């Protein structure tokens, strides 16, 4: 059963992410990316990382993709993207080789040596409980730093995207909007 689930999720995720990278339509790319992230949370549930799966669902699918969807309202998302591409073969060769090299470099120490377990899960505790125990004892400082970073990111996002937004369109009279719209048509 676990084998079947893994292969199902793996094939679906690979296909959906390939659509994201290859698609010429922005909306198709975003939708397939969101679907792939939902399925990645399925992989986390198989691995027993329940809390990480839920966080993946809430933060990635719920917040990040919704942010992209709202940000897309500023761009013309319906049209086909025209891109000038060089030789596709070279791109696939370079991209694949770089990625495989990076993964081998970072995975080799893990496979090679018998890595000792630093923080094994507490016996008898389920996954969210164990995660909380480790996160708020051993990783408390990175947690607080991440919180400050998110605050800085929120302020930066508001300031960057909110420039020249003090003129609210909903507060303008309809007649004024109609006359300005008429000017645009001419």
């Amino acid at each position, binding site marked *: 059963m*676990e084998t079947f689930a893994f292969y199902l999720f793996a094939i679906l995720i*690979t296909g959906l992410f390939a659509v994201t990278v290859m698609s010429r339509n922005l909306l198709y790319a975003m939708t397939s990316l969101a679907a792939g992230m939902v399925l990645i949370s399925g*992989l986390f549930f198989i691995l027993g990382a329940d809390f990480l799966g839920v966080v993946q669902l809430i933060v*990635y699918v719920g917040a*990040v993709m919704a942010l*992209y969807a709202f*940000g897309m309202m500023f761009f013309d998302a319906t049209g086909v993207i025209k891109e*000038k591409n060089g030789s596709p073969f070279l791109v696939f060769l370079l991209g694949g080789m770089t990625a*495989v090299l990076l993964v081998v470099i970072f995975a080799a120490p893990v496979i090679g040596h018998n890595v000792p377990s*630093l923080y094994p899960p507490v016996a008898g505790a389920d996954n969210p409980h164990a995660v909380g125990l480790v996160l708020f004892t051993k990783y408390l400082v990175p947690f607080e730093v991440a919180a400050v970073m998110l605050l800085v990111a929120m302020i930066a996002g508001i300031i960057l995207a909110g420039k020249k937004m003090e003129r609210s369109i909903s507060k303008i009279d309809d007649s004024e909007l109609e006359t300005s719209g008429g000017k645009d048509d001419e």
Partner: protein
Amino acid sequence: MIGLTHYLVLSAILFSIGVVGVIRRKNLLMLFFATEIMLNAANVAFAAISSYYNDLSGQMFAFFIVAIAASEVAVGLGLLILLYKKYGTLDLDHYTMLKG
């Protein structure tokens, strides 16, 4: 039976898809999507190693990656909106201001 190698190979495949996207695409929003794919591939590898070595550190780092991705999107989308308002396009080939 599914072993750690299966997950690492899947992570490598997803990461190469992301790198191909970063090299191939010229639209800035598509570059962001490819970056998200690469971050997710790293998350899969972290969760798998964490599970097979019975160690929670991998999951911790996956959480911090999620936090970094969220803040990256918030700041990056703000910058993208500014760029689009100024130049009317998101195509990387148009941003040649630094050309000597």
